[in-house]
């Protein structure tokens, strides 16, 4: 009986002892991590850890510039039911400033705080922008960091419209009107911190002045054009009506006078011309295709007939270098180049070229070397003295079906106005860099009937395609650096 009593007492003691393990309440608030901080925005993660089913009347974060949290900014997330993670976010902070942040939870009027984390808002900066060259009204993208909501963008002194801002790092702006400087600094103001791009933005230039319009009936096709020091010449080919044009028009850019000039040879289509030389082509008005082999040179006000060209030629590419005339392709051999020496009045043939010359290719001459643009957008360089070829550079965009123009002013070449394109580009022959110039006004469905250079300005004769009714032929002056 005594043993039984001892056993009962022991069991009672054991039972009461186990009950004392229960009842300890644990509630902890943790400021876990600052997961995002930018120029003016902060995002913090906190956590409420508890073994109780508690109801917090408020929770969130306190943010202050002082570690004592005097006058803190409260990020209130409202009531919270039970434990778990919470995320707080606020903006409107000052850039490049030290802040202290801690999580809080308010339970039954008692505020519990997490540990304090120190952080610093970041400063804005510009990394890059593109395009580097463009025109008013176009969009430009600035890549940078930590732009604030009040960011403003200026092109020099002219403010641009901000269209979009992504992730505080990518600004899309509309380029404002020209402020007077072609090269202008790009300035970004974020919370009154002034940021200036290391590279200047360049306004796209190129001013076109319409000098004359020709009546619809005057539209010419398949013509030849060339120039001497004082005058531009365009002619032969045919009119829109289909009638052959047997003469040339001469334009004097000094006086602006347009006059007519007779040609002693027969008219033709697809002839070549360069440096006052004229030759090749064919009479396609006849039932049979009749090639022209006569070859001429303009001397003063008269044409002089020279030795006939050695091959048939139709839409050959011609150029003048070192006082000699060359024509390439256009006959039975699309890789052949024929050379005329005025001292001997005789023709010879150069070595076979690595490219096939096509009638739609564009060519120009610079420092007595010839350049050809192929259909793969490559520009080939031909050195006539050594009779050698090399790849020079590449066009930044497709030449399409070509039939463009290429004219040299100083060290710059103006290339473009390819078929159904109004784009004109500038190639710097020294640096091999390209710049896009302003597009030519008028119809894109126009052909190039003439391109001339006079006093560092380009003169362009554009004739609408045959299918375009009513539109006149237009004559423009182009100032490369004009605005």
């Amino acid at each position: 009986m005594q043993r039984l009593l001892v056993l009962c007492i022991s069991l009672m003691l054991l039972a009461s002892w186990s009950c004392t393990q229960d009842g300890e309440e644990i509630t902890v608030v943790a400021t876990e991590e600052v997961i995002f901080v930018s120029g003016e925005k902060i995002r913090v993660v906190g956590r409420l850890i508890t073994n109780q089913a508690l109801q917090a009347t408020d929770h969130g974060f306190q943010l202050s510039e002082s570690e004592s949290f005097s006058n803190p900014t409260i990020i209130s997330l409202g009531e919270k039911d039970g434990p778990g993670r919470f995320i707080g976010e606020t903006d409107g902070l000052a850039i490049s400033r030290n802040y202290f942040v801690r999580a809080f939870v308010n339970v039954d009027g008692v505020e519990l705080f997490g540990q304090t984390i120190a952080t610093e808002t970041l400063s804005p900066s510009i990394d890059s922008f593109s395009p580097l060259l463009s025109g008013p009204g176009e969009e430009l993208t600035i890549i940078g960091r930590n732009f604030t909501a009040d960011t403003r963008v200026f092109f020099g002194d002219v403010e641009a419209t901000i269209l979009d801002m992504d992730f505080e790092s990518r600004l899309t702006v509309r380029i404002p009107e020209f402020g007077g400087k072609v090269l202008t600094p790009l300035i970004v103001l974020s919370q009154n911190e002034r940021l200036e791009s290391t590279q200047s933005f360049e306004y796209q230039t190129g001013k076109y002045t319409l000098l004359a319009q020709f009546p619809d009936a005057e539209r010419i096709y398949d013509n030849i054009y060339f120039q001497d020091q004082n005058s531009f010449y365009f002619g032969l080919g045919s009119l829109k009506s289909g009638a052959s044009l047997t003469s040339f028009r001469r334009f004097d850019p000094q006086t602006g006078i347009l006059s007519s000039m007779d040609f002693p040879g027969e008219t033709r289509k697809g002839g070549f011309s360069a440096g006052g030389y004229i030759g090749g082509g064919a009479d396609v008005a006849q039932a049979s295709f009749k090639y022209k082999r006569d070859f001429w040179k303009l001397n003063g006000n008269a044409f002089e007939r020279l030795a006939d060209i050695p091959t048939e030629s139709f839409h050959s590419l011609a150029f003048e270098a070192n006082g000699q005339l060359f024509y390439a392709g256009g006959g039975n051999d699309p890789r052949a180049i024929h050379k005329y020496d005025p001292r001997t009045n005789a023709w010879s043939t150069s070595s076979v070229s690595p490219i096939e010359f096509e009638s739609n290719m564009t060519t120009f001459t610079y420092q007595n070397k010839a350049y050809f643009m192929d259909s793969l957008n490559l520009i080939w360089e031909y050195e006539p003295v050594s009779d050698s070829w090399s790849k020079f550079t590449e066009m930044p965009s497709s030449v399409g079906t070509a039939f463009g123009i290429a004219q040299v002013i100083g060290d710059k070449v103006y290339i473009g106005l390819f078929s159904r394109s109004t784009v004109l580009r500038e190639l710097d022959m020294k640096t091999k860099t390209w710049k896009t110039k302003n597009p030519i006004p008028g119809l894109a469905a126009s052909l190039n009937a003439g391109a001339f250079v006079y006093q560092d300005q380009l003169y362009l004769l554009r004739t609408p395609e045959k299918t375009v009714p009513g539109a006149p032929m237009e004559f423009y002056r182009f100032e490369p650096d004009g605005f």
Partner: protein
Amino acid sequence: MLRRLVYILLLIPIACIDPYQVEVPEGEQLLTVEGMIHTGVGPQAITITRSVTYGSIFEALIRPVSGATVVIRDNEGSVTFLEEGTEARGVYFTPIDFRAEIGKSYNLQIQLSDGKVYSSLPERVESAPEIEEISLKTVTIPVEGETNPRSGVQLVSEINDPADQNNFYFWRLSPIVHVLETRPDLFVIRETRTPAPKACCNVCYRTEYTGNQSLFIAQDDNFNGLSTRIPAAFIEDNGLRFVNKLRVDLKQYAVSQEAYRFLRLVKQQAEISGSIFDPPPATIRGNMISLDNPDEVVLGYFMAAGESTKRIYIDKSDLTFRQNAGIVPDDCREEDGADINPPSDWNPD
């Protein structure tokens, strides 16, 4: 007595045919984010998918999450925009010139087309020790009921672990390139079963995405500051890969402690064998958070790591055991990823 026993025995099977109805709660299609940025060459990829639902009936497929805005932001505020692959929906690629920088922390931010925003916790990029040497070990794995074991090559990375930092290693393999030998002279037209030997070609170079056969990870608790050798990858011999030469780049990553913990848990779950000592299956929390609802479960982990890489050419003679050479009775160029020309940087000597 016997009659009663018979009745009782008859009752037992009747009771057993009642099906047990399991009520499994309908699972959600959870957002899953996988990806790693590193200091190696790009482009680097982040994959975003929705997991399949689970329930009493298996339904749906893992769906790619398309049309999201995905950016990577460093601790200085520089943001890199990722572009979704045109042929890989739900896979977002960094620009090709993007490389993570050692010492910087990176966040992944995702905005879905429905406006929901997700962010990762910051991941700091640590430098990865160089791979000093790669040694090879032929491994055979007995297969129950088969006379021939599975086999392959284990790549063992030799590293000088830095003493001044706690390192967490993770290894992956680049696509392998191996010489593929086939028998075009044995080609048979399948439909008519007519022999039609082909004149070409019996030797090609095949690129294969084998992946790593397991998760190869390690931490330096036991070898901090020491030179050590750790199994880092395994390439299975399928009878075609090791008939001549095979090339692979072993990539060694220095991941964060949290990323290592995640990978270790994934490895544990993936290698559950069904024994009573296995850890119970559980959802492994990653480092992605929904900013709209912090309680939302987001699967996966965004990692940022330093990378070191070493290339190795494995000759058939390096293996102590090889599978019987497989016979491919066709022009080798007909095989996926095969080309008659070696890669431009193929240099086994």
